[in-house]
């Protein structure tokens, strides 16, 4: 009777999933499918341009003519080119001095901002301004500040205060021009360092300072034994970024001096651009750009190994 018919409804087996469903349930396929977009993006926008750049460095391609493989010829020429070595020297010098300046001033600023001040948030916002303004705009501002005829600094010193009788020639000779650019770069880089380090400072627990105060520590001791070690991890990563940004800087130098006077302020990036794009020597420009890679790899490894050491992170011994 109807009672005996009932089990038939229950005997229905679960439907086999379709091939598409099975496909999307297989783990290897899923891994590939999910990674593919990311790999595609990386390949198209990172690996291909980088690979092409490296390939071009070994050809004599110019704008308008496909080059042929010339092996190391570009590098051989560059290694005999004093202008190239000058750019290497200035890139390293610029990065070194500007990084030290940025970190000294940035850390100081961060410590000041970490105190309780009236209008704290407003002050922090203002500090960020040099970083927010597009580099080219601040470069143009500095270009005016350093102008041989119309510099505001010269105007103040000569016409207002009367301390000098001639304008300062900021960019007319090698060393003043180099230092002027470094000052501009430091001015621009301080906010990044200061705000990042401020974030680090705020993660340090106040109880550490309280305990130290109870032990009768001095201000310097608190900085040396609490603030600095606790800040080390973030200091290392901010420094890596800062070194990379500074080493590959282009806009400040290009807008203010274009590498002049007589090539004394060329960075590798500006020299690579000048030779490669306006000069049309794509191969040689690429070779100059490629020669920046070892320096950048070094900076990255520095941070990688630095960060993986617990001493830097927790102020303990090496392990």
């Amino acid at each position: 009777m109807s009672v005996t018919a009932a089990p038939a409804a229950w005997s229905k087996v679960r439907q086999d999933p379709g091939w598409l469903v099975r496909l999307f349930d297989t783990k290897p396929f899923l891994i590939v499918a999910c990674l593919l977009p990311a790999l595609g993006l990386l390949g198209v926008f990172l690996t291909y341009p980088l690979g092409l750049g490296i390939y071009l460095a070994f050809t004599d391609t110019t704008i308008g003519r496909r080059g042929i493989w010339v092996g190391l010829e570009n590098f051989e020429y560059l290694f005999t080119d004093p202008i190239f070595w000058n750019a290497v020297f200035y890139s390293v010098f610029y990065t070194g001095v500007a990084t030290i300046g940025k970190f000294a001033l940035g850390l100081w600023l961060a410590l000041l901002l970490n105190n309780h001040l009236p209008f704290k948030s407003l002050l922090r916002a203002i500090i960020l301004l040099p970083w927010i303004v597009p580099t080219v705009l601040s470069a143009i501002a500095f270009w005016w500040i350093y102008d041989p005829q119309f510099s505001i600094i010269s105007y103040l010193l000569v016409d207002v205060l009367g301390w000098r009788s001639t304008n300062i020639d900021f960019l007319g000779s090698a060393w003043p021009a180099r230092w002027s650019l470094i000052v501009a770069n430091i001015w621009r880089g301080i906010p990044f360092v200061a705000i990042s380090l401020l974030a680090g400072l705020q993660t340090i627990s106040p109880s550490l300072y309280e305990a130290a105060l109870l032990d009768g520590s001095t201000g310097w001791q608190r900085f040396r034994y609490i603030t600095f070690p606790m800040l080390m991890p973030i200091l290392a990563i901010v420094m890596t970024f800062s070194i990379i940004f500074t080493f590959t800087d282009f806009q400040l130098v290009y807008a203010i001096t274009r590498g002049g006077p007589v090539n004394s302020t060329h960075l590798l990036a500006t020299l690579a651009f000048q030779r490669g794009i306006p000069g049309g020597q794509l191969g040689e420009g690429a070779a100059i750009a490629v020669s920046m890679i070892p320096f950048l790899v070094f900076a990255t490894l520095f941070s990688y190994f630095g960060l993986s050491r617990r001493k830097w992170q927790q102020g303990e011994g090496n392990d």
Partner: protein
Amino acid sequence: MANLITRRDAAAVAMAGASLALGQASAQAPAASPIVALPAERPALPLEPGATLRMLRPVRFVQPDEDVWRANCARFTQQTGVQVRVDFVGWEDITQQTAVTANTGAGPDIIVGFDGGPHLFADKVLDLTDIATYLGTKYGGWRPLARADGMRQGRFIGLPFGASGGPAIWRTSALREAGFERPPEDHAGFLRLCQALRRINKPAGFALGNAVGDGNAFANWLVWSHGGFLVDENGAVGINSPQTINALTYLRELYPTFINGTLSWGDISNNRAYAAGEISLTQNGVSLYFSIKNDPAMAPIAEDTQMTPMPKGLADAAPNAGLTLNAMVFRHSRFPNAAKALLAFLMETEQYDPWLQANIGYWSQPLNAYAASATWNQDPKVAVFRDTMNSNFWNGFKGPITEGSVAATADYVMVQMCASVASGQATPQAAAREAERRATRFFRAR
């Protein structure tokens, strides 16, 4: 057409000063010019059915330049039915866009580039000898700079539309105070003038920084006026010559008379210093004159300003290579006849003279007959630009135009040779050797 220009002018007035006032007048009603056209047979260019053209051009100096250019192209469309699209691109981009177009074989049919552009892509552009010969016969012949930039091995591969030169620009009152009526044509006299100007504290100033236009113009003048050259007729590097060393030795005396800071001058620095009255003698294109003329506050300076070619020195004529607008038609164009017909059409009096006048002197004609254009009667001071293309010097003088000359200019080889001597970093001999080393690299055979 009239409506079009009126509307655009309204926008233009808001944009920039009175340069337009002058320009508008000429754009709306070009003065009649006594231009003589000789009989010549126009080559038969049967237009391809359904032809459309795309043209790329550097952006304008003054608004009427663009207006008249577009109007001329519109008239071509009206008369032939060939649609023409004109795009204006920034000056820095035109070389790269040309390179991409030439290499990919796609993009605009016509590019109006600069200087030696067509020479870099000689195998990618069409031979324009037929229309160039026709235009040359009809309008009194091509001027020397037009031939240098337009021709390669006896054939026209580019069609020059005009050039912009860089004469000396100076303050009459300052020169008079220094005891000169006009800049002398010889080196010794020019040095005396600069020394005298320095004494009365109204010095000269010439860019020695990495300034693409002004820096190269001055360095080229210095070397060329002493008989030196970067490469010889065959393209072999010849910069390390006694003539160059003479030029650099001369610069060592000349440089101390300049205002301080010229080693870091860019392209705009001398304009500012001149407009501010800090210098009384420099070298620049016509833009400097117009910028002071059109500023009411500067009217007295404009009144006091004169322009003359740079001193000849040992050369036959003032050594100055104008910046040439040079049109090329690409082989990949599907409508080569239409493209050639358009270029020839634009060079005919009815189109070219209004355009020349609209440019109020920024561009100077490549064809002799247009020297009679009313452009050159509008302001006697601008007349110095009339013969810009009568120059026997070109960028890359005196070799064939190659990518080497482009690279050497972009790398400031000549400018830095001069700057290193002026700053005392190098002796003339060492500087010439260094320039030779760098140039040898750029001009190497490949």
